């Protein structure tokens, strides 16, 4: 009986794995041009990069940038919202053609997908409550506190690799949230002491949530942010990079940054 269950499971698993070996053939750029539309994934819960306005429409720095890129590719833009954690897998499996969602480059991600040239450079920030009285001079000091982070982000990678895996911090003190706004609320009520996030949303958080402040800013694992593209889609990458270079030269991206980040 037991053996048969194992056998049945093995067969099921085999079929599933066989199914996932077969990726689509042909270039992604050709596919986009043939369909005359590009399907772009984002996680619209990260103001001011991507969020929804009063009418339920997606807006933000990334959103407006992508709309311009699609316009210049001369294809329609089809947004697909999904949780941040699902985005890379969706690009990998060809569910979406690319993803723009404040992605930083990381080696781990690079093994799964490709990246465009950076369109903006960000940094990391640590947020605490106004009443925070601990010692925090270098980022590694976070190891002595209860820290919150959005799961799957490069900040999560930094905390995991540099503090938890390095033995400085206990895994139990690291809380990974699906969305950064959940972490901000937990920080406010004191379930965590420190929230680590990208600096731009961190600015939005401290201006919108009472009693929070940024205690440290700097580049750890974050830095340039890029569009995520399917692995090996060289022609699509070239096309996107060309448009990003144009937009940078024209000052379009700087204007967007002023609009959304009020720099």
């Amino acid at each position: 009986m037991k053996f048969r269950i194992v056998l049945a499971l093995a067969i099921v698993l085999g079929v599933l794995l066989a199914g996932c070996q077969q990726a689509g053939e042909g270039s992604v750029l050709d596919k986009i041009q043939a369909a005359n539309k590009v399907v772009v994934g984002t996680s619209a819960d990260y103001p001011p990069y991507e969020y929804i306005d009063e009418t339920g429409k997606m807006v933000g720095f990334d959103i407006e940038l992508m709309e311009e890129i699609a316009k210049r590719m001369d294809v329609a833009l089809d947004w697909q919202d999904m949780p941040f954690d699902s985005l890379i897998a969706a690009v990998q499996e060809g569910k979406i053609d690319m993803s723009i969602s404040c992605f930083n480059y990381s080696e781990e991600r690079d093994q799964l997908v490709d990246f465009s040239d950076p369109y903006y450079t960000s940094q990391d920030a640590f947020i605490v409550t106004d009443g925070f009285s601990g010692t925090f001079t270098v980022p590694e000091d976070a190891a002595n506190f209860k820290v919150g982070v959005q799961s799957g982000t490069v900040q999560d990678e930094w905390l995991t690799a540099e503090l938890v895996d390095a033995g400085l911090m206990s895994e139990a003190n690291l809380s990974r949230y699906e969305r950064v706004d959940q972490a901000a609320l937990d920080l406010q009520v004191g379930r965590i002491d420190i929230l680590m996030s990208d600096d731009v949303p961190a600015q939005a958080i401290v201006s919108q949530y009472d009693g929070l402040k940024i205690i440290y800013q700097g580049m750890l694992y974050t830095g340039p942010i890029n569009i995520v593209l399917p692995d090996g889609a060289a022609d699509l990458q070239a096309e996107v990079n060309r448009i990003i270079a144009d937009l940078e030269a024209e000052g379009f991206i700087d204007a967007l940054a002023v609009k959304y980040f009020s720099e």
Partner: protein
Amino acid sequence: MDVGRFIQYIASGTAYTVSVTLIALPLGLFLGLIFSLLYVYGGKVLTRIMSIYSTVMRGIPPIVLLFILYFMVSGNINLSPFWAGSISLGIVSSAYQMEIIRGALLSVSGAQMMAARAIGMSRMRAIKHIIIPQAFRMAICPWSNEAAIVIKDSSLVYALGVPEILRRAQLISASTQQPFLAFIVAGLIYFMLVFVTNRLLDGLDKRMRIPANP
């Protein structure tokens, strides 16, 4: 963002929640009925296969199956998030509905089958005209439980990017910093859906009840 707009935005996800449920539940019922008949009347081998199916399907969290179907199986068949979500919820539900119907089939006394055979009915006819109509009546109550679970599980398709009630509440919560209001609205909508469904099924149960079985 004003509250009216914001409630409206979340509420407009109801169409997705209801559509996902309306695909998953009947699909689960259809598969569940067939599988339960195979389980009860299918002989040794089919019974064993169905038993394994039930054990495996009920042993996997719906969200895991959802991801497997969406990200692995649908690599070549390009299923949309909506269909992948609805179909996988239907498959998960089929295992539970199979057990509900199996229980109902077994609760019909064995003497009924003997009587049917004695007046010259074939086994198939007896199952179709004698056993199933009685079993279905008894299945309504436990089935309304499963209907409520599928309505609530439909919230899982948010992970694939279907803009249903829960995902909309999350987006509102992120852009307005009012999670309490956003999730209360979502909770109330789910409650209303489940409440109305259970009321309707209760009514059906009362109407269909066999007079001899109080």
